[in-house]
């Protein structure tokens, strides 16, 4: 199993020294379903890693698909992903970056093809746990490599936080507070993000913080809280969710896309344990330890992103996207598994279901 337990520096070193020589020799051929913002990002990184532009994609929107044909004249651009799967026998992996409500039918179709195609799906895996579980079990049964785009797990600061919890540096976690905020919605919006079945702030802004909570502490056994509409008619703009875990840990998260002064989406988590406090966000990880724990001495340790985050082979968006895509490629090559997979993502869907039913 390809599970990365070390720091991002170690992970990139692993990817760019040992395995990478084989990546260069036979980099898996990737197709993209959905050429929106995230589709272009992953297509760009895979093109750069391979040294050749991605040559197979599908996009239902007429304007975008025509534009893609103009920009990439050598690529085969389909408007129907089913046709793409049927005709393209030379691909080893598919990246799905379409609106959330289309993930389940697309992934189901790929799995039905009975081809050994690795699948990467942008987060979240599905709009609900039933669908997520269904495609997780189907993927598990078929044995194909599968991964979901919870790229925060590959960000240097959050990876260091995971190490701190795994190594017991702050002792037994007692409680936490967290948020995921952005300044996006201050009036009624349009499109699938604002429809109750496919949208709302929990599905749009919540997945990363909820995945990190599960990654660090496991699944909560109880969830309570409330949801509020601030600007939207049909979906929630703000969520407060309190959680209790079997270990005795409790904590809460606030999720909103209507918080002023958050130019970029921001995630923050503060964990209090029996040996100190862990604070982590995209910018830094801070450890305040009462006593030495392993190699980490008592005191306050502030580690900022510029000193934790190594260079990557190609930077597009945040560096964690490149590390994530490399991890997927490496798993595809080995025909192995990689975290976070559909099983991990189904847990996030389960938690989101609980929050969306508050």
């Amino acid at each position, binding site marked *: 199993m390809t599970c990365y337990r070390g720091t991002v520096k170690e992970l990139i070193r692993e990817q760019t020294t040992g395995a990478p020589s084989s990546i260069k020799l036979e980099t898996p051929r990737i197709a993209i379903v959905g050429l929106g*913002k995230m589709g*272009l*990002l992953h*297509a*760009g*990184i895979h*093109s*750069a890693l391979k040294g*050749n*532009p*991605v040559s197979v994609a599908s996009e239902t929107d007429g304007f975008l698909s*025509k*534009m893609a044909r*103009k*920009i*990439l004249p050598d690529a085969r651009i389909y408007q129907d992903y089913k046709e793409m799967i049927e005709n393209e026998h030379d691909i080893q992996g598919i990246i799905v970056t379409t609106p959330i409500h289309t993930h389940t039918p697309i992934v189901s179709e790929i799995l039905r093809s009975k081809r050994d195609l690795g699948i990467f799906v942008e987060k979240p895996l599905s709009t609900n746990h039933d669908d997520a579980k269904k495609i997780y079990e189907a993927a598990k049964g078929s044995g194909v490599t599968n991964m979901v785009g919870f790229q925060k797990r590959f960000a240097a600061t959050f990876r260091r936080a995971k190490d701190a919890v795994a190594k017991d540096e702050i002792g037994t976690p007692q409680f936490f507070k967290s948020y995921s905020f952005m*300044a*996006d*919605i*201050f*009036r009624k*919006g*349009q*499109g699938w*993000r604002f429809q109750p079945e496919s949208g709302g702030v929990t599905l749009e802004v919540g997945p990363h913080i909820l995945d990190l909570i599960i990654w660090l502490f496991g699944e909560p056994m109880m969830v309570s809280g409330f949801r509020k509409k601030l600007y939207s008619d049909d979906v929630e703009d703000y969520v407060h969710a309190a959680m209790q875990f079997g270990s005795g840990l409790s904590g809460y998260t606030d999720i909103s896309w209507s918080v002023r*002064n*958050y*130019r*970029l989406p*921001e995630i923050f988590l503060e964990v209090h344990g029996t040996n100190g406090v862990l604070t982590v*966000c*995209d*910018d*830094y990880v801070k450890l305040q*330890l*009462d006593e030495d724990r392993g190699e980490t*001495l*008592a*005191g*306050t*340790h*502030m*580690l*900022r*992103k*510029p*000193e934790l*985050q190594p*260079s*990557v*082979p*190609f*930077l*597009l968006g945040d*560096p964690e996207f490149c590390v994530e895509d490399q991890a997927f490629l490496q798993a595809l090559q080995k025909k192995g598994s990689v975290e976070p997979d559909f099983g991990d993502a189904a847990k996030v869907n389960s938690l989101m279901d609980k929050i969306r039913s508050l």
Partner: protein
Amino acid sequence: MDLAEQLERVLIGDNPFIGVDHMSQDRARERLAQLNSEREARILQIAFKNGASGFVFSTHPNHLEVFRLLKDQNPDLSFDLYPLLPYAQGYIRTATEKGMIGMLYDLIGQLSWGGKMKALVGGSVSALTMNPTKMLSTFVDVEIDRFLRVAPPRTKLKAVFLHEIIVDLALAFQLKDIFESYISHVNDHYKVRAGLVTRNFPRLIQLLDETGISYDKISLMTPFNKMGFQMNPSREACERSLAQKPGIDVMGMSILAAGMLNLKEATEYIHGLENLRSVVVGVSSEDHAVRTFQTLRNTSTLEAPIPQRAPEVLARN
């Protein structure tokens, strides 16, 4: 050659003015809360007085008001303009809220009548013919139009920079046509260098070499700092690419590694990069502007470094 001689241009960047901080969003919020158009205009004037020769600015709507203030307060103010477009975050936010069409209406609404006609004709033709290179040119004109109209009269456009979000995506897909078309449009239409911002400098150099584009038509902006922050695929590879290209117009950005380095560390490193002849740096206060630009223009005035770096261990129990 001392640093002042090495650096042909020292420019002020706008990141602190628009809430961009690559080390801390909390710090960006704090700084932004203390800023307004009048203070930004004041900091800019202090920067120009202390050796900054130009302003590198995103096409963020706040700068329109700052330009109007500068024009009113100091009509004789002379500095060079280096617009950088698009202001990506603004477009992403508007597109999320209003959809793509709503975003285009918003943009067109901010143009002059001439700009509106140009956008309507140019944009329609390029959309109808699905010509991405023409669409990019129209977009550049539309974006720049509104800023050039309000800039103080004695300012001079020196280059038009394309944001790394577009440059690095085009680089990933090896879209040589896009680069050629953009460069030739800016060269021909504005009679200035076409600027490209990248965080993948060696790759861009490789692609530009393959296209055969003359380096005297372009300026490049890319991170250079001792920590290797945002230098990809590695600091060493970026330094090698720079060393192999004497005469290339490269502006070093992120020279303070988002505040992890002090000015002394930053200038010592830059001084060792012979082919780096320009730098762009953001400042968030009047005092910071004086110290930064005096230091960069003349190392002999270098005073105690501004302590910005957080030590790894802040306190011991």
